């Protein structure tokens, strides 16, 4: 490292990555800010793909590498990315992994192609401007549903209903710890949904989900053309794993995450994990975690920010626990791994045979071997181990490629 002119990589331009970028920019530290999307801001905050360019794209110390897929980071802080035409590699003095979280739906059977995760609908809308045709049902648990529903109605989609398993009472209990920013987002979503005449149901669950019809537990029948379901969140940890960062299982959140210290340093020197990667704690926490990590790298005062981060993390943990309490239990005949078609019963059998690490379950059930590399089913398999009361011992083992890579490129690269 050249102390007078360090270079940093930030992966993910959501709230955490943007906070790191701002702080480094203010200190004049050159950095590459990577994001798969054409615009910064993260899944929730970013503007649509066709919105005009705006900071952080225009800050001198920041090189914003939009539409860049980061494939891996090494323990030596070498980052490998695909910019759409070729593979690139560069070694940095520090790497800030701010890759966020993703939502998913737990296995249900029979599955229909009219379903996706709520986050996938949001990503299609913001990344490619795809507005679903017909009626959209948004269901699951948590405030994210309302944000997605509001994004969709603002884009002109017909949202049939937002069905949130969390009762209003649960939100009321969370209120004292909520941030102004969080409340503003939720209020604005409610306003947009109300203006569009969308039915918002709190404390309601989808008992039966069909191809074009959902039956709620109170007997209400809702018709739809697309369903966006969000049962749980899990951190993106693939890059942290490729960098060799230690992983831990959260029984509360039911996912693997990257444990960090108060400065958001992972177990690998020079690799920081900010925001959801260190545990799903929400956007406001993500932003402050980015400020803390960047200031830690710069050797600046950060005790106040650390306290703020701890406070925000407590809110995130409380919300996570509330969502987890409303999680459906997957049926035996449901498909646990959509890529490979492995069923929940086969996973439960492997667990009953004594296997408690995800890789061992994977090799005997094929869960996690498909194109998505376990991104979808790792939280599912983890839950099926955790439901026996045992904590999963280790996540899916790390493969070379964080994303599929054309053989032609691999040979040329």
């Amino acid at each position: 490292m050249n102390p007078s002119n360090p270079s940093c990589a930030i992966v993910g331009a959501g709230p955490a990555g943007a906070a790191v970028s701002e702080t480094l920019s203010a200190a004049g530290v050159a950095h590459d800010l990577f994001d798969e999307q054409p615009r910064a801001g993260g899944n929730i905050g970013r503007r649509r793909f066709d919105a005009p360019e705006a900071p952080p794209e225009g800050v001198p110390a920041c090189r914003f590498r939009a539409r860049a897929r980061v494939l891996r980071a090494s323990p030596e802080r070498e980052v490998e990315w695909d910019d759409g035409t070729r593979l690139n590699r560069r070694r940095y003095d520090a790497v800030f992994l701010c890759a966020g979280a993703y939502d998913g739906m737990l296995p249900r059977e029979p599955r229909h192609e009219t379903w996706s995760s709520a986050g996938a609908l949001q990503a299609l809308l913001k990344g490619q401007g795809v507005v679903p045709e017909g009626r959209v049902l948004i269901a699951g648990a948590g405030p994210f549903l309302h944000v997605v529903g509001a994004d969709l109605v603002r884009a002109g989609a017909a949202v049939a209903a937002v069905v949130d398993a969390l009762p209003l009472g649960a939100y009321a209990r969370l209120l004292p710890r909520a941030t102004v920013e969080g409340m503003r987002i939720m209020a604005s979503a409610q306003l947009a949904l109300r203006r569009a005449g969308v039915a918002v149901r709190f404390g309601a669950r989808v008992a039966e989900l069909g191809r074009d019809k959902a039956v709620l537990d109170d007997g209400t029948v809702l018709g739809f053309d697309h369903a966006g379901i969000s049962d749980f969140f899990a951190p993106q940890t693939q890059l942290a794993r490729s960098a060799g960062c230690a992983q831990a299982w959260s029984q509360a959140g039911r996912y693997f995450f990257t444990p960090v210290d108060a400065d958001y340093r992972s177990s690998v020197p020079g690799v920081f994990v900010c925001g959801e990667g260190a545990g799903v704690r929400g956007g406001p926490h993500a932003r402050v975690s980015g400020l803390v990590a960047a200031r830690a790298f710069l050797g600046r005062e950060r005790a106040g920010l650390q306290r703020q981060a701890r406070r925000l993390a407590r809110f995130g943990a409380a919300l996570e626990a509330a969502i987890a309490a409303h999680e459906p239990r997957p049926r035996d005949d449901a498909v646990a791994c959509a890529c490979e078609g492995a069923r929940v019963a086969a996973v439960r059998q492997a667990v009953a045979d004594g296997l408690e690490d995800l890789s061992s379950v994977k090799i005997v059930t094929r869960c996690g071997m498909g194109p998505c590399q376990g991104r979808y089913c790792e939280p599912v398999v983890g839950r099926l181990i955790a439901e026996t009361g045992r904590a999963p011992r280790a996540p899916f083992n790390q493969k070379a490629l964080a994303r599929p890579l054309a053989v032609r490129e691999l040979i040329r690269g």
Partner: protein
Amino acid sequence: MASCDVAVIGTGIVGSFVALHLADAGFTVAAIDRNGLAAGTSRASDGNLLISDKSPGLLFDMTRDSFGHWDAMIAALGNACEYDRKGATLATLDPAQAGALREQVESHAALGVRAEFLAAGEVRRVEPCLSPDVAAAGFWPDDRQVQPMLACYQIARHLKARGVAYRFYDELAAIEPASSGVALRFASGPDLACGHVLLCTGVWTPALLKPLGIDLPVLPRKGQICVLERGGVAVRTKIADFAYNALVEAIDPADPRPQTAAIVEGTRSGTILCGSSRQFVGFDRSVDMDVLKPIMRDCARLVPGLAALRAIRGYAGLRPATPDGLPAIGPVDAHGRLYVATGHEGTGHGLAAATGAMVAAMLTGKGSPFARACDPKRFLK
């Protein structure tokens, strides 16, 4: 202290077959692994059961014997492991190698192994995905492929149903051999008293033996595999570059440079496995893109359609290599209580069934025709 006749350490393919044959021979068996199922080299294997790449000799004979024991296992337990007599095609792009390839086919045929030489014009009749540039090929219709982990799982589930105890996630803390048997001490679980102990622990065997003052030369020889997504390329047989054989047999542990030779095979799930590499770099199991690159270049030369697919995974494993290229199977302690079964290099799946049968024969006093050549004491002072 809990007890059993034999403790089998390691639940990879060698440990699985050793446990199966010992249970079949009437021993009470405990199967133990410090990780989950088959977490070592078997998990990183492509599951080849090949005689095509063997020069006539011990490994050739053992492989033939092993094919019979594999067939017997499948006949007894059913086929839940994608066991498939799909055949292997050895191909060369170099016209100068055609003669040597023909000689290999003829030497095998003379020993009663079905093998067919294919001139350039005939190659694609057997394996349509091969490049028109292939100069010659040999086809071995009886070579097999298996999904390695499912084979271990199938055996484990069978043995568990027969009352064999499987202990996962239990690391050995000490091995204490004596004339009356062996005491095993564990990091977490209860101790175990055994008549015999079988270390089916691949490249990790030397580390287990070292505290006993036994220095067994088994070195990790790293290999990497690149997995391609399901796509429009049908690979019917297992395809290997004819140069593969020479690569396997050239052992120089002092040379850390990777050697690669193309191996391409389809799997039941539709993905395509591309290998292979050989490299002495210690216990490093990380995937090296600089090695995947020549692997994929070589594979796409033999099977041009691969270039249009996408790679989805890469993984690396450690083959247990011995200085003379032959396995080490037999007792290593003064009391004849502690056995090893390792050193199978890249042919562990091919030899595992024969190894299980061999160990059972040795422990029941019947002896094995392979025992002398595989005696680990050839390496011990």
